[in-house]
């Protein structure tokens, strides 16, 4: 890496600039080495591996896009993709609406004990998702879970949060519980940076408070909200731990292809079809990259409009 800087003859630059350049490279090199070995190399290897197929007889041979054809034609895989899209399409708006509501209340000082509430709301961020799923699994358990008893008491007999129809809503509740605090802290910070005089001017004009929130504050934190939508969308494509853990409370409801990542895990690790699993991981990565590129393009567009 150092040869790249020293062999390049660049008379414009003084010896001092070159020395500083080398120092800069030295600062970033430790990270770049670990990053290359444990992020870039594995991803490239997965792409390479996905082009091969191992057969019981005949060993491993190049198979071109055969694995991709299998993935793209796989009903369960796309079923999982559709499921996480439905999950994200409900969970993200619900969570962001709740997060925006509370961050506005905190920002305007409309509640007592705001600091205490903010600290409490942030707690789930410190809870491992395995443990969140464990706790909620106990609460939702059809046998002894208090939440089914509550529904029973409300007149819904034999209510089961973990039944095939309700397990997705149950997971949405868990995800809202996990991420609302984190998202509302981010929105709160964004709202705090809205200039105070804008709001003061609106108050002097006798603008009602809800209008100030929805017509003045909300548009000003739109960039943060848009970023949160995309970040949470990428998170939704990765849904894995909650369904995997809940599966232990109610066997048979959640299949091992329930979400794309569950499919990747069971195909590559449990069934040992590594190359097919790698192809699935690449396809999912392409979906994630597409979401990211869309977000960057969207942001650039927004900036030009502004």
């Amino acid at each position, binding site marked *: 890496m150092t040869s790249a800087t020293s062999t390049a003859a660049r008379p414009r630059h003084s010896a001092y600039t070159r020395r500083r*350049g080398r*120092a*800069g*490279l030295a*600062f*970033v090199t*430790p*990270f*770049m080495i*670990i*990053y290359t070995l*444990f*992020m870039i*190399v*594995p991803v490239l*290897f*997965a792409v390479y591996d996905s082009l091969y197929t191992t057969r019981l007889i005949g060993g491993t041979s190049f198979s071109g896009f055969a694995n991709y054809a299998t993935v793209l034609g796989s009903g369960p895989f796309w079923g999982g993709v559709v499921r996480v899209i439905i999950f994200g399409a409900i969970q993200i708006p619900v969570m962001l609406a709740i997060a925006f509501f509370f961050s506005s*209340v905190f920002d*305007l*000082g*409309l*509640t007592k*004990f705001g600091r205490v*509430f903010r600290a*409490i709301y*942030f*707690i789930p961020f*410190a*809870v*491992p998702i395995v*443990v969140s799923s464990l*706790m*909620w699994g106990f609460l939702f358990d059809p046998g002894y879970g*208090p939440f089914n008893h509550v529904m029973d008491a409300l007149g819904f007999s034999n209510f089961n949060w973990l039944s095939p129809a309700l397990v997705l809503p149950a997971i949405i509740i868990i995800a809202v519980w996990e991420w609302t605090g984190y998202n509302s*802290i*981010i929105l*709160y*910070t964004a709202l*705090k940076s809205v200039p*105070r005089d804008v709001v003061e001017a609106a108050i002097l004009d006798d603008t*009602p*408070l809800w209008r100030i929130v929805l017509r003045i504050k909300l548009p000003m934190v739109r*960039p943060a909200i848009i*970023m949160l939508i995309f*970040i949470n969308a*990428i*998170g939704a494509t990765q849904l894995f*731990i909650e369904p995997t853990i809940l599966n*232990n409370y109610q*066997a048979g409801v959640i299949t091992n292809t329930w979400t794309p990542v569950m499919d*990747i*895990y069971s195909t*590559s*690790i449990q069934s040992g079809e*590594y190359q097919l699993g*790698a192809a699935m991981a690449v396809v*999912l*990565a392409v979906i*994630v990259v597409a979401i*990211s590129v869309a977000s960057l393009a969207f942001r650039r567009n927004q900036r030009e409009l502004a």
Partner: protein
Amino acid sequence: MKDAADEDDGIPVEFYGLRRGTVTALTIICALFALFTLIPIIWLIINSTKTQANIFETFGFWFARPFALFHTFANLFTDVDGDGIFAQWFANTVIYSVVSGVGATILAALAGYGFARFRFRGSRFLFAMIIAGLLVPITLVAVPLFLVYAKVHLINSMAGMILPSMVYPVGVYLMRTYVELSIPEEITDAARVDGASEFRIFFRIVLPLMVPGLMTVLLLSIAATWNNYILPLIIFSNNSLFPGTVGIGLWLQHVGGSGDTNLYPLLVLSGLVMIIPMIALFAVLQRYWRGGMLLGSVAN
């Protein structure tokens, strides 16, 4: 970096022209959501004191005799069902998170400073590569890592868990922003004029000024490894190397399979044991915590 979240210079509520009782009503709504947030944790705390029979048969949100907390706690140190010892899994979690958290923070501090204050050939390209890495979730890298580990014999090794956990691109991004915004260039320039070497400048002058940012990155990177499930699940087949998350997952699988094990109290208490250190860490490091940096991590 000034942290807006810690200030309270809001407009006095009286100026909003609200109906009487609005603040009270909103406080009640906030309290209800706080209750929703705390319910699972309250359940966990209460039930960590119960016997297995009482977990199933008594009201979930109140205590029941006998008080079994100490008995269950002792069982965390024994191999109850042949899967492994929770105390060891917990110790593994601590080792993985602390070592990789400290490593990730050091690497991020060095790289963030390098990208913030130096221009060199390829610096823009390398930084763009790191930004691309921000968007790749660890879940997607886990299976590829497994494929590579199988070739280089890193399956079932602590290094195989710790080294990839040191890759924390968010940290590099946050540290770069932090240096740009809160470390005046005049200070480092003055030291350069005095003839100090670049590394001396970094360790003696810049690093001490970076402490609040470092603490935030340390906290976030420790939490990321502490909570990681899929990577250790994939790369470890040797139970004694499991972190707490994977151990809990394994126990749950056995409970789901047979149903009549005596693992329930252990599951409840181990969940609680996994939560407490993280909440304590956030509480202790709160004065360094820059919640505002989270905004930087998404809305760059």
